[in-house]
């Protein structure tokens, strides 16, 4: 400890060290850790009237968490959030792996630049607008219904917004590109000679990817999946813009609790959402055998 302190003083000087320590500890303690603890504290208290706070009813309890397990509707919504986020993650991985590999290893010269621009433009456009684009496509008088009517597949416009499909479509479209950039970064550092050598030795296309490219891309796959899943599970924009009264999502459940001033239940559900993403992250790191150290490279 003393050694680190002396090294730090030597490295930054007294003023520099003060700046680094104050900035980092304000960030971590005041902006990250303390708010999380407060949220946890809220979640472990029952909803009380102001005059009951500090009274005998003001105790720590798990009752907010128990509501999720006793309320069947809430549970169904929670499970729906999990499987649709998984679906979106798998979809993103499948359609983004080829493009990432193509840009990182196959394309050459100026076309790399143009392909990157083609990815960056939709990636940078506000997620609300990306969802809005699907609102227009899926509307009753929207382009999809009109096209299908014109071809004659349907005779009446369909209400695409009725079920969960529209929200999942929107989620996929809004967050798919969060898979591309981690994958691309991981694949870019792959030595092309390895692929060429395997091909010269007669390895099939499938085998090259399974034995050389995918193992190399593991950290990128893990980060991409973690990001996509987290964004899908945590989005409130997608259900708000593309959902219907008949399709309610977990983030909306949390939002409603804050609107109706049941902050305690809202905090409990928010904590559950955070835990879900943490568990998913742990699983991904274990499945792909990626350590935290590799992520930091």
């Amino acid at each position, binding site marked *: 400890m003393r050694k680190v302190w002396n090294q730090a003083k030597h490295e930054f000087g007294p003023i520099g060290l003060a*700046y680094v320590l104050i900035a980092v500890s304000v*960030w971590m303690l005041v902006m990250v850790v303390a708010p999380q603890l407060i949220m946890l504290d809220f979640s472990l208290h029952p909803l009380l009237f102001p005059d009951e706070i500090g009274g005998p009813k003001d105790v720590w309890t798990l009752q907010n968490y128990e509501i999720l397990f006793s309320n069947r509707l809430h549970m169904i919504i929670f499970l729906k959030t999990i499987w649709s986020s998984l679906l979106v993650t798998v979809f993103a991985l499948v359609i983004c792996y080829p493009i990432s590999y193509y840009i990182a290893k196959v394309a050459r010269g100026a076309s790399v630049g143009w392909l990157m621009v083609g990815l960056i433009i939709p990636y940078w456009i506000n997620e609300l607008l990306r969802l809005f684009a699907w609102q227009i496509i899926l509307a009753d008088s929207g382009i999809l219904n009109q096209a299908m009517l014109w071809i004659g597949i349907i005779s009446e416009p369909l209400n695409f917004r009725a079920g969960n499909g529209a929200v999942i479509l929107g989620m996929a479209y809004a967050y798919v590109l969060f898979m591309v950039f981690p994958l691309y970064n991981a694949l870019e550092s792959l030595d092309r000679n390895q692929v060429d050598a395997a091909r010269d030795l007669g390895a099939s296309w499938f085998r090259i990817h399974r034995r050389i490219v995918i193992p190399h891309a593991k950290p990128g796959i893990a980060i991409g999946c973690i990001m996509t899943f987290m964004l899908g599970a945590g989005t409130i924009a997608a259900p*708000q813009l593309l959902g219907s009264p008949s399709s309610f999502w977990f983030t909306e459940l949390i939002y409603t609790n804050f609107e109706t001033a049941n902050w305690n239940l809202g905090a409990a559900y928010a904590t559950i959402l955070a835990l879900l993403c943490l568990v998913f992250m742990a699983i991904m790191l274990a499945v792909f055998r990626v350590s935290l150290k590799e992520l930091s490279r």
Partner: protein
Amino acid sequence: MISSKKVLKIITGSYLFLFFGYLFLPLIFMGIVAFNSSSLPQVSPWEGFTWHWFHELSQDSRMWDALTNSLIVGVSVVCISVPIGLAAALLLTRLQLKSRDLLYALFVSPILTPGIILGISTFLFWDRAFAVMGGLWTAIVAQSTFISAYCMLLIMSRIQRFDRTQEEAAFDLGASHQQVFFKVTLPFLKPALFSSVALAFMQSFENYNTTLFAIGFEQTLPIYIGTKLRQFISPAMNALAVIFIVLTILGALIYEYRRMMERRKEAERKKQAKALKKAMAVQPVPAMQGA
């Protein structure tokens, strides 16, 4: 052999076509609607070209208020996040800490947390600890929690390429810590600092999920857009989308152009160094492993 190559080429080509079609077609439809006179936001029937929706958008005073708020929040987030990101990057790259990996995980954790959690926890914390109601300030703090981490990552990747001997030379010549920082380290980090300012502002400017929970009754531009899109939709929103898309295309072109120039410069530098090495015909000195 040739035929299988051709097949692969066709498959690749159609995949690229479908992929970019999927990405761009919805945006193109959204853009076209902005110029259709029809008062419903739809591509067809086409009722004639108009600039009317842009005019209507410019008359919307709540849009201007929200834009002003977004600018205030964005600038404040930059002022908070870039210094924090720089400090965290210096801490992680300059000190030989045993717990470095753990600290790194802690520092990037806000990026890996769902945005709404950051919004909720910040909102509850300021209410409980300082009795500060949700508003622009809590939105600024909530956004800064994860935007600082993005700034840190950007600055770190530049620091790792820094040649520490430059600093050591300055110290040997008697420079103080502050002089070395402001005259040697900071100028080297300048490009990364500029990009983190741009990134922080953009991230803040388009954030919805975190802001929605932290901001209370105030509105930034994305909150305004979200509220509008949940109610009756006017093509004026499409006009706003077109403005966003045009700005984004410009930004992406500038970004890619700068990236290309930087790569070219780097390649040039490497070539020169190689030529120089050859000319001098000496063993290269191994670079100092500083960071």
